[in-house]
């Protein structure tokens, strides 16, 4: 496949610290890709290599087939929305938005027309003569978007642009942003450490840790088919079960957990006797009613350790063998929370298997 933006084996070191460790990532044209990962994993650093604020020590960066290495930032045409907006404090809204166009020496009328269009699109009409310090955070943030989008480039970079907004506004803006990006066919690269944002906006998610990419895939792949415990754990709430493969009947895998056989739908070619990890999302499991009969091969036993009441549901912490499970129970009994030993009913079709030898999560 031909990529529009491509990183090939990019390495970036700060002294002895490796911030980017052989990163390779390709983004097709018009896609929205999200870099997702914990703080300090190198998301901003990777983006800076593309925008040209710093140069990789090894490897190449391509945009539309053209090698970018060594090209100064002002020749790269990769407008970036900064996390802290970075509006020019001495320029008005209008001057801020038009700055890039004026540098290109566009005729005044063209500049004006494009800026007006942006002001309208971002609901900033009437504010064009304000200085950044005279505006609210949300308004400043929209100016930052406008300033980058007005450049009409095929690429748009966004470094946690929503992190300074309140939760409600954040959801609104991310929907709008996604629509804009699709409408203009922009290839966007987005940085966040918010998994909801990543899942809801992206065509592709790249999960990073310690300067490496752990997994690249669609939101569905990342959520339901994580390649390892880190990815599974970082994207959403998850429970891990260590089990041993006991045998296979066609597309059903029999695994043994705590002396108990579970039957899981899976194509994973795990060998008999192999230790594996079952990835169990909270929505793949529920607490069985006391009188409910459940098939043995979909049942595990545990005992409730604690709970917290959240209104529409109760979150339970349940001891299962050596592991602790988190289970959200929507089927609330008016008499109060459950306690003691319970049966857990697994939805065995949605369970994902990791062939990691049953290793523990903190690797």
């Amino acid at each position, binding site marked *: 496949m031909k990529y529009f933006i491509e990183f090939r084996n990019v390495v970036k070191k700060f002294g002895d610290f490796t911030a980017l460790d052989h990163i390779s990532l390709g983004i097709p044209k018009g896609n929205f890709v999200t870099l997702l990962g914990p703080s300090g994993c190198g998301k901003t650093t990777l983006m800076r290599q593309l925008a040209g604020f710093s140069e990789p020590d090894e490897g190449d960066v391509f945009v539309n087939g053209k090698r970018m290495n*060594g090209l*100064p*930032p*002002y020749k790269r045409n990769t407008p970036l929305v900064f996390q*802290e907006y970075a509006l020019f404090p001495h320029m008005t809204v209008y001057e801020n938005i038009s700055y890039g166009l004026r540098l290109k020496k566009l005729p005044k009328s063209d500049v004006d027309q494009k800026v007006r269009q942006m002001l309208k699109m971002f609901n900033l009409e009437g504010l064009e003569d304000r200085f950044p310090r005279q505006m609210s955070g949300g308004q400043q943030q929209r100016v930052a978007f406008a300033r980058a989008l007005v450049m009409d480039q095929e690429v748009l970079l966004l470094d946690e642009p929503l992190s300074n907004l309140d939760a409600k506004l954040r959801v609104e803006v991310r929907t709008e942003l996604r629509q804009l990006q699709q409408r203009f066919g922009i290839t966007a690269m987005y940085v966040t450490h918010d998994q909801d944002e990543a899942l809801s906006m992206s065509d592709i998610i790249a999960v990073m840790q310690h300067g490496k990419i752990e997994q690249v895939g669609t939101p569905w792949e990342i959520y339901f088919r994580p390649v390892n415990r880190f990815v599974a754990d970082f994207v959403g709430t998850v429970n891990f079960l260590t089990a041993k493969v006991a045998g296979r009947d066609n597309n059903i895998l029999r695994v043994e957990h705590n002396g108990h056989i579970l039957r899981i739908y899976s194509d994973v070619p795990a060998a008999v006797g192999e230790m594996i990890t079952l990835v169990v999302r909270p929505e793949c499991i529920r607490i069985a009613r006391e009188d409910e009969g459940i098939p043995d091969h979909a049942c595990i036993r545990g005992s409730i350790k604690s709970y917290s009441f959240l209104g529409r549901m109760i979150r339970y912490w349940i001891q299962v063998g050596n592991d602790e499970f988190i289970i959200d129970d929507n089927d609330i009994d008016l008499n109060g929370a459950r306690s003691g030993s319970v049966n857990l009913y697994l939805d065995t079709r949605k369970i994902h298997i990791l062939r990691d030898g049953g290793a523990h999560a903190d690797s």
Partner: protein
Amino acid sequence: MAQNSSAKESIKEMKRLKNEPLLLIAILAIIAFICLFVVYPVIKVVVFPSLTDYAKLFNNQRWFTALKNSLLMTLISTISCTALAFLFAYVNNRLDVPCKGLFRFASLLPIVSPPFIVALSYILLFGVQGIITKQLFGIHIDIYGRTGLWIVQTITFFPYAYSVINGVMQAISTNLEYAAYNMGATRWQVFRNVFWPLCRPGVAGGALVAAINVLTDFGNPMMIGGDMALLPTEAYMQISGWYDMNTASVLAVALLIPALVLFVVKNFWVGKRSYVTVTGKETSLEPYPIPKFIKWLLFGITMFFTIFILLVYGTLVYGAFTKAWGYDWSLTLKNVQYVFLKGNQIRNSIVYGLIASLGASLLSMILAYIVQKKQVGVNKLLDFFAILPGAIPGMFLGIGYVMAFNSQPLELTGTAAIMILALMFWNIPTCYNSATAGLQQIGNSVEDAALNLGANSFRSFKDVIIPLLKAPFLSSFVLSFLRSVTCLSVVIFLYSPSTTVGTISVMVLVQSGQWGEAAAFTTILIAIAFTVLRITQGILKKQGIDLKL
């Protein structure tokens, strides 16, 4: 390993500079300038005397005494400066008393005045013709020498310590003290266990600033030191009296070493030891009240020194308009007229000050910009170069210029250029610090944003950095101008009859006992300094910026 990779990094970044020829040229030019006008003169002085000349420092009784006197004077004056500065800062920050504005004004005055003004006033007050000694009490005391100089140095330089200590004390939240009271600590325990430890870095920093100033001061010892030998004055005598460059160099080096030590301790040790973090978020409670008796005692002492400082300046102005100090107290304008006759020297002061400050603030701004915003491998070196002149006593720089620029191809002796260059490089650290502080306020990403939108380095500097730097530029320009107009130690070795400046005239007048004319000269210099300060403050205020000294 780390060494190796950082070296590699530097090389790579130097290669990157090929894309930005302007930046590369600027860096090379700055390095060349500083090597030529700071490093080279220093080396010239250090290597000038032979080893046997250096040995004489310990053999020759008089010079050894000068060394001892200088160090001792620095020690006792530093202690008194720091104590007084602490008192002023404490009263300003922690006491609920009237007249605080007056106290702050009094502690600002000496900073904007020529350094010898306190000595001059002190002579007018307590000297042979002193208004207090002769006129009021009819007594005669010998004020020249150690005690007089000590008092004068304390008053002159405590404001420098004050500004450091006050800054730190302001940043200590009173909430911390309340937290300690809350846990059952007594007043004394709170002071000892909480307040004092937090102040300590500020006190150390303030003490070092005062020490450097006292050690390298030239004007006050010249006027009131009497026959007590000190390194700076002794070096001056050697040159002006005997044209003995050898000895002058030895004495200058003897002065440079302790100055360097103080400088290194201040910049690399104390600088990293402040615990105070300014978050600006938490609201502090009112200071916890202290017993009335102590409060008013501290107020009284502060008031005493404040009145003394005001008296110093009052006397000076009075002296400027008095016919013959000590004999004829009637008022006159002849002293002021005399100054206007010598208008050339005042004009020189202003012109040299303006050009030097313009140069210094421009160069510092570019330097600070490169160091702060451009990730080039030579940053550490540039930063070191920028603060280096701060380690060099003014008179040392003066002597260095005499030696370095007295022959072709750079024969500058006696020209205005040499005065301007010396003042300019002497002011670079001050301007650089001010520019750096200003730049740090501008987030890194603002400039990245300009680059990202298509502005090259030059455009982003012009469109974004320069407009944002107007305020720090103006304040560093003013600071530098104040320092230049009131500077004596650097220029005393460099002036010629046609390039004399105001401060030199004052010194000559004092030496020949022409008090009235000297006072008039000084008053006019201070008036100029204050006018420039007020105008700039006015300009900045319009843009909503407070100019801090």
